[in-house]
């Protein structure tokens, strides 16, 4: 058998799709190329013309090529076709080639560059779609209004133009150009197993949403928002509350509230503006009302905007955006996992199913311990609770028993989480002081103690950044690359090995799970959500996750916890107290207006 692919199939589908639903395939165009990338034939199929198998070979001698191939694989699944053996996802290849850490410039407002097919083509200097208003036709196809403006031949022509451009893009990606290295085919095929095959399977499943309750909340939105504001906006009784009665956040009124309440040490960006990201809020949980305000902020957006894509089968199918971040993590949006943990209560599993949420224990710290080979960090991680080790380092507890400490000090443990990660990622003295609510001298001393306790970790981190700066490149354990421009943010580099290692772990486990026939229903940072009917599969999934952890960490075991095990139609209930308060408030608001009976409030 030849060492080269004998056939290359460049393919694109057009389909109608409602938010949260599976695609309704309209047409498909494929250019079949020979082993020299020369055009052999064109296949154009319209709805109703699809056979039970693809009209081209999908075996080991054929390379299937598509841009954002997860969409094509979803169409394959809808049509009942098997996935090709080898997929070259051009989007993944482009993300890898264009993954550049720009110079650190906190004052510059940057818009994340779009990386759709036309954007990739432009980057490679390829012109196309001259006679087509691509945005208009894409929208018309997606929402089904194409019938008013286009005939099938025009849609097929449009689809073929995409395929023609994809074939040109493939050629360009293989050759590279200044600033865009040639695609490394084995790596792209490896990544595409995840970003195309697995993602399509996972997105197609979706998460089960309690539609009756979701609709009740949407119908009684103002009552729910009002109750949440009363309960969680610490400025609710002020003349100028942070939130409007409609649940709209104001940066200015938040800043004024901080001044009124005497909080002068809120973390700021280098530009001088308040830092209002989640990490900044977590750091300030020691200020009364802030934890609740953070929870409110993350919950209101979810309820007010109601952008959850839910299919007609009541399942939320968010886009996972594989490799959507510089570290190779997914960049999923529009799911209960993109809101406060309390909002996960909208998930209820069918009575016959077992819902299980499994996550890697303190994944980033475990990866850091393994990669740095710091014996003390390994020991502290293996001790079962790295946050307990930090609390002891900070002299915040004398309790030698991590289990007892965890049980009796949940608030302190929660405060240790961002600090542990922060110190690893280069958090400075002022931020640590704010996070601990202690004098900067104490924060400085803790950082010094951390250095003395974990010297090999600190040396590894410095060497790793030094090497990256010299080579202008850093990569994950299994080769996901990030190239560096001039003067990148060092903290991003500190963060990269841990985040990219965690991403590798998730990808590796996901591919193996799918190969084992255990298709997750959601991937979340360091956890995986399952919906199965047999407990054995959950146990098998846990084993696969443990093995993936060992593979990424050269044999060091990253623990896997069963965070949720939901049977007999149980509702997802995050264990954290604030999440439970948030959910109870939502339910009480509905109860107060008699939208739900009393017994629903847990």
């Amino acid at each position, binding site marked *: 058998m*030849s*060492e*080269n*692919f004998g056939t*290359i199939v460049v393919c694109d589908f057009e389909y109608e799709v409602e938010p949260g639903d599976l695609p309704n395939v309209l047409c498909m165009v494929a250019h079949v190329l020979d*082993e*020299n*990338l*020369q055009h052999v034939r064109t296949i154009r199929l319209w709805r109703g013309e699809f056979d039970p198998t693809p009209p081209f070979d999908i075996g*080991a*001698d054929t*390379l299937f090529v598509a841009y954002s191939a997860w969409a094509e694989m979803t169409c394959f699944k809808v049509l009942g076709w098997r996935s090709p053996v*080898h997929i*070259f996802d051009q989007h993944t290849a482009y993300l*890898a*080639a264009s993954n550049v850490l720009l110079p650190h410039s906190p004052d510059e407002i940057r818009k994340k560059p779009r990386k759709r097919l036309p954007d990739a083509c432009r980057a490679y200097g390829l012109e196309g779609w001259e006679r087509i208003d691509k945005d208009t036709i894409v929208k018309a196809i997606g929402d089904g209004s194409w019938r008013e403006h286009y005939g099938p031949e025009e849609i097929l022509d449009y689809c073929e133009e995409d395929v023609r451009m994809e074939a*040109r893009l493939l*050629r*360009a990606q*293989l*050759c*590279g*150009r200044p600033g865009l*290295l*040639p*695609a*490394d*085919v*084995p*790596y792209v*095929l*490896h990544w595409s197993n995840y970003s195309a095959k697995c993602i399509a399977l996972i997105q197609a499943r979706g998460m089960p949403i309690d539609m009756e309750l979701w609709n009740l909340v949407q119908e009684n939105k103002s009552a729910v928002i009002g109750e949440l504001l009363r309960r969680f906006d610490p400025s609710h009784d002020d003349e100028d509350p942070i939130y409007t009665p409609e649940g709209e956040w104001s940066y200015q009124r938040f800043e004024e509230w901080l001044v009124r309440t005497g909080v002068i040490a809120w973390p700021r960006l280098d530009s001088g503006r308040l830092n209002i990201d989640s990490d900044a809020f977590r750091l300030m949980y020691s200020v009364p009302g802030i934890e609740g305000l953070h929870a409110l902020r993350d919950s209101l957006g979810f309820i007010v905007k109601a952008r959850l894509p839910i299919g007609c089968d009541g399942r939320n199918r968010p886009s996972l955006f594989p490799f959507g971040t510089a570290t190779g993590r997914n960049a999923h949006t529009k799911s209960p996992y993109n809101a406060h943990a309390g909002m996960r209560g909208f998930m209820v599993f069918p009575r016959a199913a077992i819902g299980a949420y499994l996550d890697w224990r303190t994944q980033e710290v475990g990866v850091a311990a393994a990669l740095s080979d710091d014996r003390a960090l390994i020991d502290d991680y293996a001790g079962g609770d790295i946050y307990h080790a930090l609390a002891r380092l900070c002299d915040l507890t004398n309790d030698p028993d991590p289990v007892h400490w965890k049980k009796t000090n949940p608030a302190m443990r929660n405060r240790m989480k961002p600090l542990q990660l922060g110190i690893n990622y280069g958090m400075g003295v002022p931020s640590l002081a704010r996070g601990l609510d202690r004098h900067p001298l104490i924060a*400085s001393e803790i950082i*010094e103690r951390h*250095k*003395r306790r974990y010297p090999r970790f600190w040396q*590894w981190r*410095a*060497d*790793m950044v*030094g*090497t*990256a700066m*010299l*080579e202008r490149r850093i*990569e*994950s*354990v*299994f*080769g996901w*690359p990030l190239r560096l421009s001039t003067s990148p943010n060092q903290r991003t580099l500190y963060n990269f*090995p841990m985040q990219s290692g965690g991403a590798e772990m998730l990808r*590796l486990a996901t591919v193996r799970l799918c190969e084992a026939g255990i298709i997750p229903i959601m991937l979340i940072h360091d956890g995986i959500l399952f919906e199965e009917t047999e407990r054995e599969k959950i146990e098998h999934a846990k084993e696969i996750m443990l093995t993936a952890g060992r*593979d990424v960490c050269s044999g060091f075991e990253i623990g896997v916890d069963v965070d949720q095990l939901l049977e007999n139609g149980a509702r997802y209930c995050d264990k954290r107290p604030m999440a439970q308060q948030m959910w109870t408030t939502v339910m009480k608001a509905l109860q107060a207006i008699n939208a739900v009976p009393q017994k629903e409030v847990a």
Partner: protein
Amino acid sequence: MTKNKPSIVPPASADNAPIQIAKPGEFSLDKFRSKRSPATAGIETLQAALPHHPMSQAKDFVRLHPDEDNYWSPELCFVHVPVKGQKRETLHLIEEELAMRHLPSGRILRFRLALATKPNDVFFLCHVPTQNLDNVWNESNLQACLQAKQHWTQATSRRDEGVDGYKVDFAKNQDAFPEPNWPTQKLDALIQTTFAGRMIDRDDHPGLLRLIGARQSTS
């Protein structure tokens, strides 16, 4: 994305040139494992220009390098050169022979430079007195410098108390601060970097011309 390029790479302009794509071999995760080892770099941060001042100006506990042979310079000559528009970094290093030839002795400062650090590796070059050691200021300063070879030491001026000399204090707990992690760069290199552009080593050096009131050449 640099390894395993396609088997045949045509010129970028060739839109239809044949390209073949090699099939991946049997899957092995180890093929993808990064071969880069961050530990191979063994990178040490090179010290850039260091601050330099007498020990008392550190206003903190200080350690001086214990290796006097290699990290304490011999007595060096310095002059302050007035530069309009610049308040700091007017102290220039000057070759003794040039200084003696051109400048009155009262303008020439003489002291040693020793590699020093405040707690947690905040390095500086410490001025160590070598002249007029019977002067109580210099004597107490030198004592403090010598003590700081072994102990975390702080020198504080007693001028406000109406007393001449420095008060020399030791850290209450000598292990309150970690042992210095001294840079391995040579002292000569550190001094050269610190005084780059401010070393008077020739007759027509602008600093020297300014000090003797000679016309500057801007060419």
